[in-house]
């Protein structure tokens, strides 16, 4: 305010008269700020354009397609508005698809994180061959899901699979892993957990190795045994890692496709949201609009899950 009064009082001064008064509600940028903005745009714009073209445009297109009754490959379509969404939620499919998605996600995220933590604790000990063991544990994570699915399919095959051979050796018949829908879901969960276990283990291992030693020593001096130290000290200190893994693993499980597709081509018993979206458009029915609506439901679900995790789970996280 003092500046404005000074400027107003000095209107006779030509230099001062040239100063423009700031307009309320309108920002002004210094030459330096403009230059920085230019550099920012030069560096970021190509990437932003690529993201807009290959991520956001397909996303918006998908939302638009979800409002159409459109047969894949056909050049014409009919606008149906919310029709595809109404049909999905009123059909018997929604319940089973969402249920299968929930079971698959909870089992794979829970399984991979719990087992990953146990493996990380084991790999954090001074044991012979530790480096080799770490590599072996992490290796499945970088393998192709298609390859993993095919190999495990051979293992589970009830006629000439390795598992069947082992079971026959002890006088047992192989369960119908592939044909029985309930067992098929168990089968793909086991394989998905096996594949992603290494990821959780390595991230937990990094978390374990960065724990402050003084806290652990203090707990030991206070008489806490290994189990009490693990439960009351290690787990809370690992909570940022757990939170990170919870978000990334949940997103990964909700988008799991390759292993399910290879091991159970018809999705009988293993029809998750993303698999149903595939089946509706490409796998069987050619209903591209309906499939797009299912994809949007998945997108919203992912958004809600991430939002809930950020809103509620992060409160429990202790940052050392």
């Amino acid at each position: 305010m003092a500046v404005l009064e000074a400027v107003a009082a000095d209107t006779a001064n030509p230099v001062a008269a040239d100063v423009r008064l700031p307009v309320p509600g309108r920002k002004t940028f210094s030459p330096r700020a403009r230059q920085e903005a230019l550099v920012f745009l030069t560096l970021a714009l190509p990437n932003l354009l690529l993201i807009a073209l290959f991520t956001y445009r397909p996303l918006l297109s998908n939302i638009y397609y979800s409002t159409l009754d459109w047969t894949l490959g056909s050049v014409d379509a009919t606008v149906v508005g919310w029709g595809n969404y109404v049909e999905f939620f009123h059909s018997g499919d929604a319940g089973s698809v969402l249920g299968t998605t929930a079971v698959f996600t909870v089992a794979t995220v829970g399984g991979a994180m719990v087992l990953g933590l146990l493996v990380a604790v084991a790999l954090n000990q001074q044991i012979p061959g530790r480096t080799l063991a770490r590599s072996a544990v992490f290796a499945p994570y970088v393998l192709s899901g298609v390859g993993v699915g095919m190999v495990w399919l051979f293992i589970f095959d009830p006629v000439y699979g390795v598992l069947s051979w082992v079971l026959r050796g002890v006088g047992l018949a192989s369960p119908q892993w592939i044909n029985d829908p309930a067992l098929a879901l168990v089968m793909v969960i086991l394989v998905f957990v096996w594949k992603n276990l290494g990821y959780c283990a390595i991230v937990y291992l990094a978390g374990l190795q960065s724990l402050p030693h003084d806290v652990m020593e203090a707990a030991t001096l206070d008489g806490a045994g290994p189990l009490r130290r693990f439960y009351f000290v290690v787990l809370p200190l690992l909570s940022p890692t757990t939170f990170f893994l919870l978000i990334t693993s949940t997103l990964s499980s909700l988008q799991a496709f390759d292993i399910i597709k290879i091991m159970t081509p018809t999705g009988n018993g293993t029809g998750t949201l993303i698999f149903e979206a595939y089946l509706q458009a490409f796998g069987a029915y050619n209903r591209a609009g309906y499939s797009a609506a299912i994809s949007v439901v998945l997108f919203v679900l992912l958004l809600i899950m991430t939002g809930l995790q950020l809103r509620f789970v992060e409160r429990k996280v202790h940052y050392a």
Partner: protein
Amino acid sequence: MSRIINRRNFLTVTGLGLGSVALAACGGPSTGGNVPAAMNTDWAKVTPAAKITFMSSHPGKSADIEAALIADFEAANPGIKVELITGGANYEEVAQKFQTSQAGNNVPDVVVASDVWWFRYALAETVMPLDELLAVVGDKSAGFNATLFGDYKYTDKHWAVPYARSTPLFYYNKDHFAAAGLPDRAPATWEEFALWAPKIQAANAGNKGYQHAYQYPALAGYAGWTLQNVLWGQGGGWSKEWEITANSEASIKAMTWVQESITKDKWAGVSSKDAVSDMSAGAVSATVSSTGDLVGTLEAAKTAKMNIGVGFLPGGSVSASPVCPTGGAGLVIAAKTSPERQLAAAKFVSFITNAANTARFSAATGYMPVRDDADMTAVLATTPQIQLALDQLKVTRSQDYARVFLPGADLEMANAAAKIMNEKADVATSLGELQEKLESIYTKTVQPKLKD
């Protein structure tokens, strides 16, 4: 931090929103009903393109023979090159690629289309009727086997030509049958096989890894096709033209018989992946599979020193014949290309399905020759079992509309079969649910698009 919504911000957000929606709407299907009508082409003024593409899944391990046929075509037509594209491992993967390619401008010219895909293409008009084009390139389409060519007829036009056409065959392990004291032949009816099965199972139960006298093919691999035979034999079916009959009394009876063979009589199982492989491994004594597996299976059996026999599909208590469905794949020509490419494609299609080349293709794979005037003498000299497929072709029956013309019907049939055969579900209830789903598919996705 709070933000004031002023005129500038409002206009910016509104503009971005509208722009996004407009951008999203670009490139998709037309929703205004203003699809351009097909142009009439004066083929006499069209010169064949210099290069076309052929998308195939190489059915029956036919990659080598397809490459050889292409080489011969290029030699006979020096101005035209054909690029062979592997579109996937099966018909479904090829179909996915062909359909998604419609969104762009790089559409394959000639595509392998199975019995369940060509009709969808014809409805969507992504392929073109071939009668006129075949006449232009001088192909006497009358030479095609009438049943096989007739399978592709819709609105008085043929939308594909037969290529890798097959029927199911009854495959059996001769040694297992001999061990049970049975004749060296396929059973005449399923009822006869039901009498044989306990003997076969008892005689071979001591074999390492032995499981069942009969193995139903994997349900993921076209259950609707392989079960068609059992349904027809008992007087049932998936449909009678557009009337769905999946839960008719006869169909329920047929599928109950199937269920009991697995759960009650316990002489049959269901393959998890490939029934022919199960049989080759000695785990089962008989199965049903495509003629397209014939040559490969016989070669594998020879290597394994196993005696494999083949026979007609068994009949049923109501109908002994015809109970064998046609199947396999034909060739379609894409509509979304230039007349020059379509003309070159027609020349190619005509060439690889001509009498001499269909015989060569048949010899390499076991698929049936698609022309009546194909000389099969040399082929039969090396693989006499193909004669059986040729004989059976005379008593084939086109598949039920529900299986081949309803999108997703095959999957629904496989899922219903899984409930009945694997989960021991109530047959009438499962087929009732299937009936509803098939009727829904017909009403929603096919009926509105049907033309007279």
